[in-house]
C-alpha cells in the first residue's frame, strides 16, 4: 500500500531551546521552523552536537531539567501547541500521539524487567484493560516488528536478545499506542549494516501500513536517500537547507550541504583520502552574528560574516539560508 502524504500534522515554528549551564547559555536549537505532513518521512541531518537530538527532545518536552528550556516558539501537534502544556498533559500525549526510538538498543530497555513487561507498561498507560488482553496486545506488537516466536519472547529479559532484536522491541514500544508521529534518533547507528538494512525496511513497512509520520535523525545521507521524502540540514542549531530529498541530492545549494554530500564516499570512484570539512563547528555558547558556517566555508564573503543570511527559495519546497546560493 503506497503512503498517502496528507495534511501537516506537526508544525514547529521558530523553536528556541537553550541550555543554561555554568559556562554560559548554549543555544542548542536556535530558531527552527518546519512542518511534517501525515505519512511523510522527514530527515534531519547534521553533524554531532548541532542540535538534532535537542530538537527531538524539545518536541517531546523531555529536555534535561533544569538545564534546558524551550525559550520561544511553538510546536503544534494536530493544531495543538505543546509548548504551554503541563507535564501531566504531556504524559498523555507522549507514547500515544508522539513517540521516539532511541539510539542505543543495548541501553534503552530496562535490564531488570522482561520485554513483555515493558511493552505492556507502555500499552497500559494509555489503555485501561485487563492483564490478559494486554499480554495479547504485547504479543501482537512483537509480531508486528517480526520478532520470531513472540509468545515465548515476551518473557525474555533484554540481555537474552541481540541488539537488532532489542531495537525491534524498542520499535514495538514506540508504535504500541499508535502514535501519529515517531521520532527516530539515529536508530540504526549501533547496529551492523545488514541488521540496519532490515530494520530500516521494517520501519518503512510499518510506516506504509499505519501511515504514520516519521522524523529521522541521522548523519547518514544513505539512510536519508532510502527513507525520507524531505530532508533538513542542520548546522549549529539552525536549519541551513531543506527540501525534497531528490532536489537536495541533485542540487545542493548551501555550501555546507555540498560539503556534507562530498564527504559521503562513492562506490564508483577510488579515492585516496575521504573528503572532510576543514575546521570545527562553532561553539553553541559563542555563535557568530553572521552565517554560522562562514568560518569553514570556502565561498565566504564579508557579508556572510556580518549578517545572517535569509532563506532563499531554490526550487519548489527547497530553501537554503545562504548569501551566495542562487535562487530561482
Amino acid at each position: 500500500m503506497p503512503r498517502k502524504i496528507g495534511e501537516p500534522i506537526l508544525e514547529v515554528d521558530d523553536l528556541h531551546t537553550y541550555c543554561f549551564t555554568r559556562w554560559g547559555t548554549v543555544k542548542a536549537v536556535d530558531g527552527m521552523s518546519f512542518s511534517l505532513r501525515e505519512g511523510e518521512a522527514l530527515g534531519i541531518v547534521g553533524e554531532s552536537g548541532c542540535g538534532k537530538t535537542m530538537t527531538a527532545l524539545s518536541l517531546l518536552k523531555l529536555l534535561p531539567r533544569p538545564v534546558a528550556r524551550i525559550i520561544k516558539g511553538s510546536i503544534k501537534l494536530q493544531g495543538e501547541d505543546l509548548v504551554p502544556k503541563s507535564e501531566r498533559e504531556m504524559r498523555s500525549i507522549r507514547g500515544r500521539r508522539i513517540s521516539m526510538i532511541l539510539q542505543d538498543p543495548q541501553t534503552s530497555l530496562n535490564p531488570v524487567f522482561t520485554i513483555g513487561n515493558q511493552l505492556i507498561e507502555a500499552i497500559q498507560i494509555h489503555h485501561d484493560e485487563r492483564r490478559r488482553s494486554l499480554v495479547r496486545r504485547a504479543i501482537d506488537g512483537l509480531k508486528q516488528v517480526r520478532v520470531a516466536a513472540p509468545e515465548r519472547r515476551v518473557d525474555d529479559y533484554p540481555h537474552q536478545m541481540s541488539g537488532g532484536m532489542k531495537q525491534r522491541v524498542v520499535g514495538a514500544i514506540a508504535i504500541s499506542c499508535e502514535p501519529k508521529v515517531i521520532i527516530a534518533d539515529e536508530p540504526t547507528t549501533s547496529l551492523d549494516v545488514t541488521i540496519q538494512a532490515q530494520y530500516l525496511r521494517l520501519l518503512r513497512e510499518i510506516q506504509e501500513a499505519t501511515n504514520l509520520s516519521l522524523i529521522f535523525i541521522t548523519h547518514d545521507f544513505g539512510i536519508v536517500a532510502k527513507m525520507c521524502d524531505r530532508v533538513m540540514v542542520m548546522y549549529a542549531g539552525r536549519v541551513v537547507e531543506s527540501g525534497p530529498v531528490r532536489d537536495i541530492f541533485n542540487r545542493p545549494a548551501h555550501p555546507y550541504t555540498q560539503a556534507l554530500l562530498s564527504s559521503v564516499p562513492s562506490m564508483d570512484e577510488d579515492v585516496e583520502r575521504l573528503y572532510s570539512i576543514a575546521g570545527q563547528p562553532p561553539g553553541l555558547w559563542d555563535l557568530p552574528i553572521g552565517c554560522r558556517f562562514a568560518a569553514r566555508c570556502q565561498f565566504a564573503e564579508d557579508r556572510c560574516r556580518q549578517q545572517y543570511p535569509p532563506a532563499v527559495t531554490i526550487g519548489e519546497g527547497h530553501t537554503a539560508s545562504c548569501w551566495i546560493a542562487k535562487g530561482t
Partner: protein
Amino acid sequence: MSLIVFTLARFSGNPLDVMLPLEATAEDYERVAKHWGLDQPLYVQYGIFIGRALQGDFGMSWKWPGRTAMGLVAERLPATLQLAGFALLISALIALPVGVLSAVKKGTGWDAAAKVIALMGQSLPGFWLGIVLMWIFAVHLGWFPTSGRGGLQYMILPAITLGWFQVAAMMRLVRSSMLEVLDSEFVKLARIKGLAEWKVVWKHCLRNASIAPLTFFAIIAGVLMTGSVVTESVFSWPGTGLLVIDAVRARDFQVVQAVVIVFAGIFIMTNLLVDILYAYLDPRIRLR
C-alpha cells in the same frame, strides 16, 4: 577465623588471675589449670577446642559456672538480633527514600540537608552518640528510659545509635547509584512512553540502583553485630554484645569464642542471603 579469635583471646592475659582469689597458692593455680586444660601447649588447646566446636561443644563458661558458653550466647542472642533488626529496619526505611529523593532533587536544599545528616552519622562515634542521646532524650527530656530492655521505647535510642552510621553510608550509596541510573537511556524511554515520574523513579530506577546498596547491606549486618558491643554496653542492653564485654573482662575465653563464632555465622548467612537477593533483583545474575 577461629584461629585468630583463639589466639587473640589468649593475648588478653591469664584467665586464672581472674578466676582464682588473690590468696590462691601456686598449687591452686596448677590444679585449676589442669582441670581446664590450660596447662597444655597452645596448639593442643586449639586442637581440643576445634575438635569439640565441630561437635557443637564450645565448652563451659568460667565466669558463669554451670553454664555452657553456647547456652549463654543462645540466651542473649534474641536481644541482639532484635536490636540489630530494628536498627536495620529503620536505617533502610530512612536511607532508601532519603537517598532516592536527594538524587531526584540533586543540588537542592533537601539534598544538602541530607548530606549534613549523612556526614554527622559517619563522623560521630557510637559510644559518644549513645551517651549524648541518652543525656538529652532520657535524662533531660525523659522521653525514653536510659537503659535496659523492655518495650519499644527501650529500643529507640540504642537503635538510633546503632543505625545512624548505616543510614548515612547507605543514603549516600543509594543517592550515587540512583544518579547514575537516572541518567540512563531506559529511563528516557520510560518517560517517552508517558510513564508518570514517580513510577519512573520508584519502579525503573530503584530496582536497578539497589545492587550496590544491597552489597553494602551485607557489610552492615556485620557492622551491626560488632557495633552492638559498644551500643549494648552504653545502654546496658542485655544482648550478646554486653555478654562478650563481660566475658572479655573475665577472660572467659569459651564465651568469647562462642560469641565470635556465632557472629561470623550470622555474617556468612547474611552474605548468602544477599547473593540470593541479587539474583532476584537482577535477572542477568540468574543462571540459565
